[in-house]
């Protein structure tokens, strides 16, 4: 009995140890929102918005304000929030970066990613394009 328990624990430990971080692309979005709506929630009550959104997978609809590519080819998409000072920063998976780069300014898009909080922008990590009308 004890041996079984030890084996089970060791097995679980090994599984946890080698487990990759969850693939956000395969996860369902817990919340569907818009870039202006998301920013408004954070501006109204950042603590409440932190509790609600941080670590959650969300799908955000908005207009592409800008697309930036870094030296390693990694793409970041900024969604317009209607506020000049703030937007929604969406940092893409490396494999999803080519799709992100094909977006153009003003285009409507829904981006899915994991929310990490708000600096000046609300930031989404591990993003992919959810819907492209």
């Amino acid at each position, binding site marked *: 009995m004890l041996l079984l328990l030890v084996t089970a624990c060791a097995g679980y430990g090994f599984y946890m140890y080698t*487990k990759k*971080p969850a693939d956000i692309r395969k996860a369902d979005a817990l919340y569907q929102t818009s870039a202006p709506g998301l920013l408004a929630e954070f501006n109204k009550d950042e603590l409440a918005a*932190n509790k609600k959104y941080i670590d959650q997978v969300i799908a955000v609809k908005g207009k592409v304000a800008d697309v930036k590519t870094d030296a390693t080819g990694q793409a970041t998409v900024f969604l317009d929030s209607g506020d000049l000072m703030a937007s929604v920063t969406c940092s893409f998976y490396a494999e999803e970066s080519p799709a992100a780069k094909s977006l153009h300014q003003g285009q409507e898009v829904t981006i899915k990613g994991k929310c*990490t909080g708000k*600096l000046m922008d609300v930031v989404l990590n591990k993003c992919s394009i959810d819907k492209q009308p």
Partner: protein
Amino acid sequence: MKNLIVATMVLFAFQTGHAQLRYFTKTGSVSFQAGTALEDIDGVNKSATSVFDATTGQIEFALLVKGFEFKSALMQAHFNENYMESDKFIKSTFKGKVTNIEKVNFKKPGEYPVTVQGTLDIHGVAKPVEAPGVFKVLNDETVTSSSTFSVTLDDYKIGIPGLVKDKISKTAKITVYCSYAILK
């Protein structure tokens, strides 16, 4: 308090009416390595915000701790829950000054070694740090910055349990890379 820091940063970034030259990025990369020979432990954050003033040398960074990405889910969980307590300490910031900014000619493409001094806030603990770095002027509108320095985890009250102390280094090597665009 953290809101105040970001608010100040926003003001600092967008203040107008001065003939100052400011550079800005929202896609800065900050990575760290805290592994030992026994295990690689590293994380990278690609959405750091940074601004600097080419006239005064003032420079600031801010990032969301939850934004660090890891190779292993367990490492990510330990980093957030046990070491950084990122539910409580959501942001990490650096505020300081490039002490020899006058040595950088922003009109002339090239590499310029610099020294940065300031206050680094990690895990709710603020400590003075000094780090060497390089500004690379690419053209009139783009400058990149890079820096590598070490911090002692104990200084920031990041405790390592005895069980894993051979796997985790007592210091973390932090590497920063930013590609700034001029603020108009």
